[in-house]
């Protein structure tokens, strides 16, 4: 599928995200080629009516405020529990009709009926290309206001609440790109017709994949495995498989990069304290250049400043820019670009099990910070089922357990599991479907 390498500079679809956390934006960024790199942010586009902006702002402020409250004992948990209740994902088993709309969904539709999103859809209607949105509300808006083009919605977690599907799913024209098999099945329980759900996998950055077959990914993975399996335990057990898949199962003596851990907090910055715990525990190893730690603060300068200050207090000031990286970016696009580029030489990602869980498909092992919200709990279960991630142990002693895990070959195995088991080519499959062309990429099995 050579043509999958090309970048689309012509706009073939409207790719629409929202500025609320990073999940929706990260997914949209991966398929930006479809939009000729012109992503529309539904809650922050040029000309957005004040009333619409207000609708969005309220939702976002509540989300971010409560996410920030989460680490506070009792109160944070209580507030978050209430919010989570609204977003609750019911148990999957037994399979049953779950199409009854939730309170939150009815509320969203009430606001849409009042005119929320009408301006956006009218604007897009001027050029009725397919809409590909990573946020359900935008899809509902387009559906409600009779958008003439196709409407696609990309799910951004491994399991989703009722409010991802429309009020009347059986009579909606919204089509879904499901990130995994469970998402597809879940949408069906919510009433979405099966022929409107495409199992594509989460859209991952094409720069990190390199087409089909995934040449860039494979080269990165081999370098990663070499860093993650210093005693050759994993390689000795999986040599045949690795040789068959990657063409080599030996590490060249020269390392491509130092052992690198990227710590990525969510947009609400709720886990900044954890970042400092990690830095504290690894301080000696950072100084010894045994590990390189990158603390990603996204676009939050205050978080980056907090890290820098803490680093100086720990006597790590000299390591900033060397074995300790604390980058900060002016906008989300710049952040995603740099983060993706850095993943080429990242060996381990530490994150809460957000949409970043899907990145294990790039052959990146994930160490999970505690999940926030029920969808992240599902992501955590999925990640463990895949074998691509593991919950963190006590961060204060990360300098011990991290290296124990690495020395046992276990982290290398996670990298491999993620690559083999999780869907890699979501962005390519989505492109093929939106562009209406036949895909050469193998169909995904319905992995639970």
């Amino acid at each position, binding site marked *: 599928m050579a043509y999958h390498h090309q970048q689309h500079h012509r706009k073939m679809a409207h790719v629409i995200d929202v500025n609320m956390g990073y999940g929706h934006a990260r997914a949209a960024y991966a398929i930006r080629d479809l939009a000729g790199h012109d992503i529309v942010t539904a809650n922050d586009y040029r000309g957005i009516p004040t009333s619409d902006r207000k609708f969005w702002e309220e939702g976002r402020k509540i989300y971010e405020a409560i996410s920030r409250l989460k680490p506070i004992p009792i109160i944070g948990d209580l507030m978050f529990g209430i919010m989570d209740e609204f977003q609750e994902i019911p148990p999957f088993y*037994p399979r049953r009709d779950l199409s009854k709309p939730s309170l939150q969904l009815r509320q969203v539709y009430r606001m849409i009926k009042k005119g929320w999103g009408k301006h956006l859809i009218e604007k897009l209607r001027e050029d009725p290309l397919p809409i590909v949105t990573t946020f359900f509300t935008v899809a509902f808006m387009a559906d409600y206001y009779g958008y003439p083009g196709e409407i696609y919605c990309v799910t951004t977690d491994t399991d989703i609440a009722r409010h991802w599907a429309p009020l009347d799913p059986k009579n909606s024209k919204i089509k879904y790109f499901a990130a995994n098999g469970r998402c597809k099945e879940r949408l069906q329980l919510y009433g979405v017709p099966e022929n409107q759900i495409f199992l594509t996998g989460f859209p991952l950055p094409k720069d990190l994949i390199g087409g089909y077959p995934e040449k860039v990914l494979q080269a990165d993975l081999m370098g990663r495995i070499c860093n993650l399996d210093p*005693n050759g*335990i994993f390689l000795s057990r999986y040599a045949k498989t690795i040789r068959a898949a990657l063409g080599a199962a030996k590490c060249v003596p020269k390392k491509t990069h130092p052992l690198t851990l990227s710590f990525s907090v969510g947009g609400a910055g709720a886990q900044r304290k954890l970042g400092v715990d990690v830095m504290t525990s690894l301080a000696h190893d950072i100084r010894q250049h045994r590990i390189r730690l990158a603390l990603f603060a996204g676009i939050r300068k205050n978080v980056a400043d907090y890290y820098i200050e803490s680093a100086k207090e720990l006597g790590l000031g000299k390591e900033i820019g060397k074995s300790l990286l604390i980058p900060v970016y002016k906008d989300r696009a710049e952040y995603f670009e740099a983060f993706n580029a850095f993943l080429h030489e990242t060996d381990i990602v530490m994150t809460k099990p957000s949409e970043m869980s899907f990145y294990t498909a790039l052959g990146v092992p994930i160490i999970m910070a505690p999940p926030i919200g029920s969808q992240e709990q599902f992501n955590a279960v999925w990640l463990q089922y895949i*074998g691509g991630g593991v919950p963190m142990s*006590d961060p204060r002693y990360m300098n011990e357990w991290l290296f124990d895990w690495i020395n046992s070959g276990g982290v290398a195995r996670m990298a491999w599991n993620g690559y*083999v088991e999780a869907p890699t080519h979501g962005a390519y499959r989505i492109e093929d479907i939106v562009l209406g062309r036949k895909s050469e990429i193998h169909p995904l099995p319905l992995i639970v």
Partner: protein
Amino acid sequence: MAEHRHSIKTPIAHVIDVDMGYGHSRAAYALKDLSGGVVTTSNNYPGIPASDRKTWKEMRELYEAMSRLHTTPIVGGILFAPIAKIEEIPKFYPRRDLSKANFALRQAYRMIHNGLGKHLVRTLEVNPLPVICTHPVPAFAMEVHGYPGDIWCVPTDADVARAWVPMDSKQSRIKYLCANGRLMERLALYGVRENQLHLTGFPLPKELIGGERSTVIRHDLLARLCNLDPNELFLDRHRKTIAATLGASACSYRKSHILTILYAVGGAGAQRGVGREILKSMAMRLKRGEVKIRLSAGTRSDVLRYYQQTLKELNIKHGVEFIFSHDRAEYFAQFNHALHDTDILWTKPSELAFYTALGLPIIMSNPLGVQEQFNATWLKYVGGGVMQDDVRYANEWIFDWIASGGLARAAWNGLVEAPTHGTYRIEDLLLGRETSLVQLPSIV
């Protein structure tokens, strides 16, 4: 190891277990070739003094009460809290000196100093072969009462409490045969000298392995993968590795038996209710002949009767088999034989967690006790087991997991990641010969 024969004709050790739960006895049963097929049960051997029997009986009753308490909601938790403290396994990190003896250990030594185990030592020292104890107390008794031969101890979980290691751990001559790397490191934190620690893997039944080349496992696993990967998703991803490991014929599965799930309760018979729920959930599938359920009642006739009654209630007439015997050795023989054509082992994460090394995927019921929580973590880390979902809907999720190839992957992970040849390594050590088996890496 081709030149190493493991069919041992004359006893070269005394293998000693305790009749308390199945874990200690299951490990001993796997090692019985070392003792000419005879396992000495320290709390129930011919000639055991009445005082020893009484002390052991009290310990066993406490153990069984604890196991049952675990399954009692809320009340169990409250009542169990002080006992949990006694059997607590402290956090591993940060690594630190954990050699200070705890209450449970001091209590055990008090009993030994009062004479517990002395008669057993005097009995065995007539023929002072090495002793292999699968419970710590007999090993301590051997040392305290001056047994002249070597003393070996086989811990039966993936991580253990301080009570597994002698009071004066640094000076003790007890040698440990460790099931996994974490256990070895833990015993070192408890003060056991490094040269007393041997990483062998848990002793698994040789009849289910088939020598160094694991010929029996390969045969059994091939048939198992056929049932566990009906859509060939797993096969598709790992074709080359499977063919290289199991032989070229593995590239196409051959069905040899109906999908078979074995549910095992522990020695106290707790969690029998899970077996009942499994039957209820699977009733239709059993009637349609889509699955076979094996219910292991162990040596407990009350559990057997409970299951028989459940079958009557549910009007299930086909597809269910029982594993039961009043005799422990006979029960283990039946159990091991059944594993040849068992596709999924469903159990609490007891010592049976180690059985994933036979290429068995394990569905875990809730762990009872802190050591089982560690076993569950180990099993998940190895990738050989998953926690059960809602048992009432097992008829849905088990088949979803199978359809996705996930349980085939767990079977494979168990085989590749968990140590298989523990029994053979222990035999080589006891025979004092160099093993040709691969050295186990210290997997956390």
